[in-house]
């Protein structure tokens, strides 16, 4: 047997070890095996140290971040507060725009469903300067076809009527004003009576005899008798009924939110129009324009 010189022993060992590992590689390729047993042992032996290291590092990092690395916290806090304020402002603006978009969508829907009725949407740009009269100012006027005594509504219900019309804007007397009124009737019983304002948030239904039966929560709609508003537009809901002499004292909550008006619809006609139902044949009444004039109660 040939003796291996001692200085070559390490070279022989190197060659042997490499050949063994090449064979190991070849076995893995041929059998598509990945030496699972060896891997399981190694991972099992090392993973406790890795886990301990990870916990230890996490602890050190937490201590560092929460106790030592706080020199910029006040500055960051101040910056974040400023960002929060800005974002709050943006959020409020976006909410306002979203609400406006919703309102405009309702108006558009209303207009599309009453395409045969001439109407125009207008933005509320001002309110009455004092409490003597409850009016609002619109951004549209005579140039847009708006004339005195035209009806003003929202998709929710009646708002009032135009009392002054200028070239580019107009003034609307709200239904809640003392001088205002609308021909109305109770939706269920059909009892007709004008509804007018008292300078307060609630309206009053004026001429309903004590003998007539009226229910709380009953809907009040336009009767069309005032020749300004078409029939069956919502006016409000009965919220209070008291016996009176000779008529009941009936208070009505307006259907339209008259304290938060932003966009309204002006009915561009001095002739009575019928907006009852889409597709229903129109039975418009006489075309004579006229102011709202409370009429004696008429029971249908």
């Amino acid at each position, binding site marked *: 047997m040939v003796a291996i010189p001692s200085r070559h*022993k*390490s*070279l022989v*060992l*190197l060659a042997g*070890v*490499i050949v063994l*590992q*090449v064979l*190991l*590689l*070849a076995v*893995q*390729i041929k059998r598509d095996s*990945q*030496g699972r047993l*060896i*891997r399981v*042992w*190694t*991972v099992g032996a*090392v993973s406790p*140290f*890795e886990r301990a*290291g*990870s916990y230890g*590092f996490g602890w050190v990092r937490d201590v560092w971040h929460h106790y030592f690395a706080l020199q910029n916290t006040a500055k960051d806090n101040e910056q974040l507060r400023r960002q929060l304020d800005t974002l709050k402002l943006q959020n409020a603006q976006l909410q306002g725009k979203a609400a406006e978009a919703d309102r405009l969508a309702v108006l558009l829907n209303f207009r599309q469903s009453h395409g045969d009725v001439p109407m125009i949407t207008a933005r509320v740009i001002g309110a009455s300067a004092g409490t003597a009269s409850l009016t609002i100012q619109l951004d549209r006027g005579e140039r847009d076809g708006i004339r005195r005594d035209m009806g003003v509504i929202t998709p929710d219900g009646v708002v009032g009527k135009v009392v002054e019309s200028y070239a580019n804007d107009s003034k609307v007397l709200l239904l809640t004003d003392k001088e205002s009124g609308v021909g109305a009737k109770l939706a269920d019983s059909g009892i007709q009576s004008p509804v007018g304002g008292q300078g307060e948030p609630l309206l009053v239904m004026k001429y309903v005899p004590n003998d007539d039966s009226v229910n709380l929560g009953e809907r009040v709609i336009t009767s069309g008798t005032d020749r300004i508003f078409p029939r069956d537009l919502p006016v409000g809901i009965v919220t209070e009924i008291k016996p009176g002499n000779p008529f009941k004292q009936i208070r009505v909550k307006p259907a339209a939110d008259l304290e938060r008006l932003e966009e309204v619809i002006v009915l561009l006609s001095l002739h009575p129009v019928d907006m009852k139902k889409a597709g229903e044949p129109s039975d418009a009444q006489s075309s004579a324009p006229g102011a709202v004039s409370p009429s004696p109660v008429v029971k249908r």
Partner: protein
Amino acid sequence: MNDAFDLRMGESHIEVHKFRAGAIIVATLLALVIQSWAPIHFAKAAVLDLPLLVTIYFGLSRRNPSTGLLLGMAIGLLQDSLSGPRVPLGLYGIAKTIIGYLASSIGARLDTEHPAARFALTAGFFVAHQGIIVITRRILLAQPEPWFNMRLAIAALVNGIVAVFLFLLLDRLRRPS
């Protein structure tokens, strides 16, 4: 093998170092644990090859080619085991076996205590280690692998720099002669 002795190559005087009990095992395990754990928290730590640095250090210090290659094989196979099923057992094993042998052989002939020598040797061994892996992949595993790129050059420099400080730390594990 654990006894300290001097190798005399002509006029040179090179000392073989002994280490505290369990120092090699602990250092090897620590290197493997940190290698598999650090990149999770510091992505850039992936350029380091701590098991290779440990192989080089103990190869250069022990100056025994047989010990160096066996230690390199053990560390390489452990690293293969921890590298997941996509890395076949033997890939790092072969590379670190050869590097362990080369480091021990060079350590027996040169003074490798100077930081500049340690930096240059580590960077060179890193490139050689990568070259062996590429050869193994291309020839034995038929897996295409680029021979050289800028990332490899940067990694070689980074490992060389880290080695200078790591080796100073590992020097403290030596038994006083």
